[in-house]
């Protein structure tokens, strides 16, 4: 069965520290991959996307993600977090060529402590 796994449901880091949020997917072929962020009482905002090419993709606000075909992963990183990064982060995938219906992980709630 196709699935998206975010193993860390809650992550707490200190302001200024580095961050990695993990995402693993299980699909028969390489899908399109996305990271979204959701702030309280808001919808989802796209951070970055991977379709093909360079496995490291840059996103907004200093976020980047690295695709690994061998590990079926798409981990999100940030070198130095800010308190305003506190939010819930979702990894999402869609199979190529079948329309853009997204499958989401269960999210990782990030808390940035002062």
């Amino acid at each position, binding site marked *: 069965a196709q699935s998206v796994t975010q193993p860390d449901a809650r992550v707490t880091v200190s302001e200024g520290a580095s961050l990695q949020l993990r995402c693993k997917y299980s699909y028969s072929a390489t899908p*399109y991959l*996305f990271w*979204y962020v959701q702030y309280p*009482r*808001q*919808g*989802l*905002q*796209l951070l970055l*996307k991977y379709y093909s090419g360079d496995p490291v993709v840059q996103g907004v606000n200093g976020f980047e993600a690295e695709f690994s075909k061998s590990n079926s992963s798409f981990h999100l990183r940030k070198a130095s977090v800010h308190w305003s990064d506190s939010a*819930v982060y*979702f990894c999402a995938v*869609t199979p*190529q*060529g079948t*329309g*853009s*219906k*997204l*499958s*989401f992980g*269960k*999210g990782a709630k990030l808390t940035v402590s002062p």
Partner: protein
Amino acid sequence: NSKVIQTPRYLVKGQGQKAKMRCIPEKGHPVVFWYQQNKNNEFKFLINFQNQEVLQQIDMTEKRFSAECPSNSPCSLEIQSSEAGDSALYLCASSPGQNTEVFFGKGTRLTVV
């Protein structure tokens, strides 16, 4: 910032009542999606449209959900007879086309009391 507009932001209904929410997709986006996000952050894809035509939908066996995207009018999602389990955040999203990025609205939070 997304230009997908969802109304209302909050909706409170009694059990058995109809619940209707609307979505104006971003201009020029022919593909529209509806997702349900529950309190456990689980997303359920409900339906998507390209222009006015349904592309995919889940098996709404309960037949309580209906959706449409008429031309020149907002898209809508309606629950005919609300149940407590329908309490969730309903997210509308739009896309320029298939297999491209998807932009979400702020959602309609439905509470069924």
